């Protein structure tokens, strides 16, 4: 007698089950946003120990955000309210000015060499003060634009120093952080990135928010 074949299982409801699971995962999914603006806070120092560092006024690019989310820029001994879209260009111009003379002279800078503005990359400081009632989104935009200005300069310097790599500073950083990148390449990238960071440091200072 021929062997009786096993009865076929009806797989028609398989799709329904899979759909049910699919919908469950769709609903519970929250694709994680784990990227953002990385910053380093200054270490805490008790008030009496705090040293007063003297910085020349021309090397400070002071931004103040008020409770109406307006931006006040104090530089070159002058204060004015600026629009957020101009901030990046203004910060870039300030950083790239290179007005220093003698040992403060800036070889890398390509700016206007205005003696009233910053000496060189290592002297130029951007400071940011905000009110307690400033909106977070304005603050983030300002932070973003400041980082963008630094990245613009670092990109330019990176391309100038390492033209053979055919990428800019931001792309090189991404590549360095990518786990797929070859360790040897990582090592050489790290060296170059550190060199650029050394040449164009992010000197960013944040004052405590004003008490209201």
């Amino acid at each position, binding site marked *: 007698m021929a062997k009786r074949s096993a009865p076929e299982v009806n797989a028609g409801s398989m799709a329904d089950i899979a759909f049910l699971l699919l919908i469950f995962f769709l609903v519970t999914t929250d694709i994680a946003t784990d990227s*953002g603006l*990385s910053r380093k806070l200054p270490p805490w120092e008790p008030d009496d120990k705090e040293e007063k560092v003297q910085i020349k006024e021309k090397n400070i690019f002071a931004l103040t955000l008020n409770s109406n989310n307006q931006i006040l820029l104090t530089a070159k001994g002058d204060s004015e309210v600026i629009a957020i879209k101009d901030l990046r260009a203004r910060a870039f111009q300030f950083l790239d000015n290179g007005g220093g003379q003698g040992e403060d002279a800036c070889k890398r800078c390509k700016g206007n060499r205005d003696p009233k503005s910053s000496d060189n990359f290592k002297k130029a400081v951007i400071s940011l003060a905000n009110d307690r009632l400033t909106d977070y989104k304005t603050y983030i935009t300002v932070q973003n634009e400041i980082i963008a200005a630094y990245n613009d300069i670092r990109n330019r310097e990176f391309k100038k120093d390492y033209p053979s790599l055919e990428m800019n500073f931001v792309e090189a950083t991404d590549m360095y952080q990518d786990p797929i990148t070859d360790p040897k390449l990582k090592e050489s990238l790290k060296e170059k990135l550190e060199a650029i960071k050394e040449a164009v440091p992010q000197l960013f200072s944040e004052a405590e928010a004003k008490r209201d």
Partner: protein
Amino acid sequence: MSKFKKKKDGGLPPISTASLPDIVFMLLFFFMVATVIKEDNLKIQNQLPKANQIEKLDKKKPISYIYIGKPSSNYIDTYGTEDRIQLNDKLQSVEQVQAFIAAERAALAEELIPTLTVSLKVDRDAKMGVLTDVKQELRKTNALKINYTTKKGDAVTN
């Protein structure tokens, strides 16, 4: 003449749905792999702002999350409408930030403690006041690596 009409030959054959489960399973696996089950149940509004100069956070290094925002509509009666801080799944006061960081550190291997990054997930409509206080507390407890977690997008249109 037959009693029953014959089926018309010109009709389209039925589409086979045999591969439908395969397609659905494929989607299912995608979502299962891409899903990160929410760690914290948020009691506050948390619409992140946009920025474009962003860096990815290294998942291998420890990350602690601090959420700031107005209580969401269900909790307005209990917590009011001022910006609040959420640590783990409770709304806490500023003073508890230091204890929170200490607890996060206690759960880590010693060599990883200096690499701890604090991810600040702050609602885009929050005010800076509470965030400033949190930053002061973080400085006091020496948790200096922070990340303003944002979405990718054009910052100027925030």
